[in-house]
């Protein structure tokens, strides 16, 4: 087994005439937590969505767990089973209970039995601290609870890597902590994670590696302490100054 779980090279993506990604290289090793930071419009979410091919790249390759997704003959559905994804807007299935949200793909995609998928689902609900909500409907939950259910749903597929696309950006400030705590716990358990986030403190404390993106390229990458603590590039410095001192952004 290779120790590189995600290998992205020479990735280009444009929407019409707008070049969003201009040649991205990225590799994530097993058990590594990589955070992608950068201003909005920098292409960081698009990069993440290219990793499980929710966006189709124009050029470049994406290899996850030894499987090339960008190969035109690749079985994309099979590849996605090993790539968990958590969205900014949670995207829980509104017509299904919490438990069914967690079991539906296990049963329909992985063909697990009802009993087995329920056991796995309950174990993951316990992990995110929402075991008692198994019978609730998504609309009955707070945003923070919905996002934790969404994490449990992705975990129930037992993925090799988890992608997080600004998982706390749609949450009320007081609910952010619960979601970050779950993510931190996941990281400590050794889950391979690729996280697009604006939570600098989380990136600094949890990430093994931080990428700063701007204008469709990776401007700077390295250990969190270096990229966030002592950035070399001016663009990184300006961005971090604005994010960390929003009241004095223009000084």
């Amino acid at each position, binding site marked *: 087994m290779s120790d590189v779980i995600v290998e992205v090279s020479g990735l280009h993506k444009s929407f019409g005439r707008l070049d969003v990604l201009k040649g991205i290289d990225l590799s994530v090793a097993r058990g590594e937590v990589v955070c992608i930071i950068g201003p909005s419009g920098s292409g960081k979410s698009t990069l993440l969505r290219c990793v499980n091919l*929710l966006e189709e790249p124009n050029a470049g390759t994406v290899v996850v767990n030894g499987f090339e997704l960008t190969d035109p003959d690749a079985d994309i559905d099979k590849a*996605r089973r090993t790539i968990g*994804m958590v969205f900014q807007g*949670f995207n829980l299935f*509104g017509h299904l209970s919490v438990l069914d949200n967690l079991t539906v793909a296990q049963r329909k995609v992985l063909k697990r039995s009802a009993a087995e998928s329920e056991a796995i689902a309950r174990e993951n609900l316990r992990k995110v601290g929402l075991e008692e909500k198994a019978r609730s409907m998504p609309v009955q*939950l707070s945003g923070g609870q919905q996002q934790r259910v969404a994490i449990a749903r992705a975990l129930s597929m037992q993925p090799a890597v988890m992608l997080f696309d600004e998982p706390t950006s749609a949450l009320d400030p007081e609910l952010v902590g619960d979601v970050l705590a779950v993510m931190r716990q996941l990281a400590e358990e050794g889950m391979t994670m690729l996280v697009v986030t604006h939570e600098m403190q989380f990136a600094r404390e949890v990430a093994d590696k931080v990428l700063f993106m701007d204008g469709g390229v990776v401007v700077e990458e390295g250990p969190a302490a270096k990229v966030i603590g002592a950035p070399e590039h001016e663009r990184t410095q300006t961005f971090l100054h604005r994010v960390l001192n929003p009241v004095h952004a223009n000084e």
Partner: protein
Amino acid sequence: MAMSRRQRAQTFRGVQYAILVLVVVLLAVFADWGQIRHAFFNVDAASTQFPEVFSTALVNTIIYTVLGFALGLALGLVLALMKLSSVAPYRWLATIYIEFFRGIPALLVFIALGYGVPLAFNLRFDIYSTAAIALGLVGSAYIAETLRAGIQAVPPGQIEAARSLGMSQTRTMLTVVIPQAFRIILPPLTNELILLTKDSSLIYLLGLVRDEYELAKFGREGLNATGSLTPILLAGLCYLIITVPLGYLSRYLERRTGRKQDEGLKVTA
């Protein structure tokens, strides 16, 4: 003369009541109440209608409607998926079908199926098949458009979540999109059912034997036999037994889905 806002409102309301009272008085004085009672509320004529008005006519109307609605729903789903297909000819075919059957009177479809098809192709369907096909053809055009709107109203994030869990496009459609689309369109779909219930009356054109009578035909035969309007009124009331509860159901579902969406918005806000 300047009137205050309150005076104006009171005068306006007074005039409306005065007109109402005048009409009632005129009706009471000049209408031939004996004749009206004889025509609409003739007990003898009414008694000849029972129990068949329920056991045959109402039951048949429900059977024809349900058959037509079932076929319309199945055909409508296929048409809706065709309209959303990435294959252009499917989209064209579905559009032509929908525009055609929405644009022509249902009566024409019944005449074509009842008289045209038997003559042209020497094909004879029994009355239940004819009813199902005619109502299904007409209903499916409306249902297809409703379903298409419902499918498109399911947020794209739902599809992305399903695909990211490894579901195929077909599996996503069946497990995630269509169930939610049906929830969204339940109120308009109930209205389609009401329209089909009324359209089922057109079957009376096709020459039914007594066991096949639905409400409109049954009422008309009653009119011929008794010379009274009472059977027609009775048939009308029987339609209301079906359509009024459906109307309330539709409004109830509308309120319920509306409230659900509000709750959903509150959570994400």
